[in-house]
């Protein structure tokens, strides 16, 4: 068989084309995600306000008068609402991821002339996906009457800052990115069991899967770098050159863990 499944290794223009297709898909997915958020916000407003007033959801007054009352009450319940805190913490994790990928792309071996084009393209696209996740989470926070979270997660900001001086090669950058993606995936997997509506469970489960995908690719990339074979990081990869263990290094867990998930309050706006 040939080295790869589908023809020659992509060069820069080929990757650009692939990225364009991917961004179209990404835009479609984000539109769908916003619909989920809108549905969630409507449901959460109704159920949370009803709970705060000791009412069943069906007892809410619908219409202009009801909407006014609901709007004025939102900031009050948002302040201590678990859903809002979870969304703010999620936004803080995304903000940190965006900033970290930004730093990485400023390094010559990730975003500069000496970078592997696949790694560079991956970092760019992943940063954009994290930006969109942050916007989505903050949009929901805002609609629920909470304060948008534009700061990075404080716990992991300290960790990222401690690692910055060590970012002297692509392996170190990949290791840091793996840690952040894993925290995000673990947190959102845990959040699925913490939030109050099906729409929000779907949102967090859907985004957790994407962060896990980022982690899978980064694990494979880091393994190839550490193994001294960065030239094998290519699209499509040269399959018959890859070491056996590269086939499974990207998905180490049968069930995604949650023991390192951030608590709901970690990135909440005080």
């Amino acid at each position, binding site marked *: *068989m040939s080295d790869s*499944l*589908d023809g020659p290794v992509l060069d820069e223009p080929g990757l650009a084309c*692939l990225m364009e297709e*991917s961004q179209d*898909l*990404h835009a479609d*997915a*984000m539109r*769908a*995600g916003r619909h989920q958020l809108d549905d969630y916000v409507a449901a959460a407003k109704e159920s949370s306000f009803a709970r705060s007033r000791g009412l069943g959801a069906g007892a809410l007054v619908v219409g202009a008068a009801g909407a006014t009352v609901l709007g004025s009450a939102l900031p009050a319940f948002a302040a201590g609402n678990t859903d809002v805190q979870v969304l703010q913490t999620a936004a803080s994790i995304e903000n940190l991821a965006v900033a970290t990928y930004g730093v990485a792309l400023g390094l010559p071996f990730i975003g500069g002339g000496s970078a592997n084009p696949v790694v560079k393209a*991956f970092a760019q*696209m992943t940063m954009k996906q994290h930006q*969109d*996740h942050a916007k989505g989470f903050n949009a929901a926070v805002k609609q629920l009457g909470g304060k948008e979270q534009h700061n990075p997660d404080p716990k992991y900001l300290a960790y990222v800052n401690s690692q910055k001086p060590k970012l002297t090669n692509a392996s170190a950058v990949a290791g840091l990115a793996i840690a952040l993606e894993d925290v995000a995936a673990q947190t959102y997997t845990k959040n*699925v*069991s913490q939030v109050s509506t*099906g*729409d929000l*469970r*779907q949102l967090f*489960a*859907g*985004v*957790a*899967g*994407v*962060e*896990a*995908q*980022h982690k*899978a*690719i980064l694990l494979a990339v880091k*393994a*190839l770098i*550490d*193994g*001294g*074979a960065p030239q*094998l990081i290519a*699209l*499509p*990869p040269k*399959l*018959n*050159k*890859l*070491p*056996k*263990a590269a*086939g*499974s*290094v990207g*998905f*180490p867990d*049968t*069930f*995604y*863990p*949650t023991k390192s998930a951030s608590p709901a309050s970690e990135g909440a706006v005080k």
Partner: protein
Amino acid sequence: MSAREDNPIAITEGELISMTRDLDEMHHESMREVNGNMASLTDRLAGIAQSQASRRSLLFGSLAVAGVGVLAACGSSSSGGGKTATGTTGSPSGSSPYMGDLKVVALAAALENLAVAGYGLVLSNATKGAYGKVPPAIAEFATVVQKQHKDHGAAWNSVLKGAGLPQVTGTPLTIAPQAVSALKSAKTLGDVAKVARGLESAAAQTYVFAAANVSDSGGIATAASIAPVEAMHEAILLFVLGQYPVPNADIGISGAVQPSALTA
């Protein structure tokens, strides 16, 4: 070409095995948490299954009115934790022992079985040389992924068994014949990877759908913990196919396999 390119396995295997050992320890920790979720799910659903049995005839009527589940005939057993539901064709939905959350559990078990069978078929064909020389990394991928799907299936079946319902040991799904046919007709590893990618994507989306729609907290947590793993399988397959490995910002549910696809 460098010596490293000529013999890449010798270069990286030791380091990767060391990484794998560390990850194995993490895996055992996460398994303890999952087992706790599954045990609590089993306890709660066992009670639900008993009450469902008494309401089954009433529910059959409701489902028929709603037009749910126009399914093919199937070979499934009808009772007991030691019984099994097998086959790829099904009985009318009205005779299904699985209701509500338990139907989603059975669907999940069937999907996992389909994945296990699919990768088994591929590995068997590969051994016979059907795809030419198979790269070691691809064989490793199929072997480990198949094992993970087996573990997922066993977890879901333990819930069914605990609830006193037949375990799903076959692939009683409307989508199974097409998937098996596609795998059987695959001539190259590329063909195989495309089918496998479709199955992994469908599984990931089905678990996202399940996390949003089942009512039991243990079921929600378990579905949420499996969805990312299937998504990771999909990302690696996309990479193998030379496609961008994380094309969407959200896993989505438009490709989820619906409970009505279960024919047991």
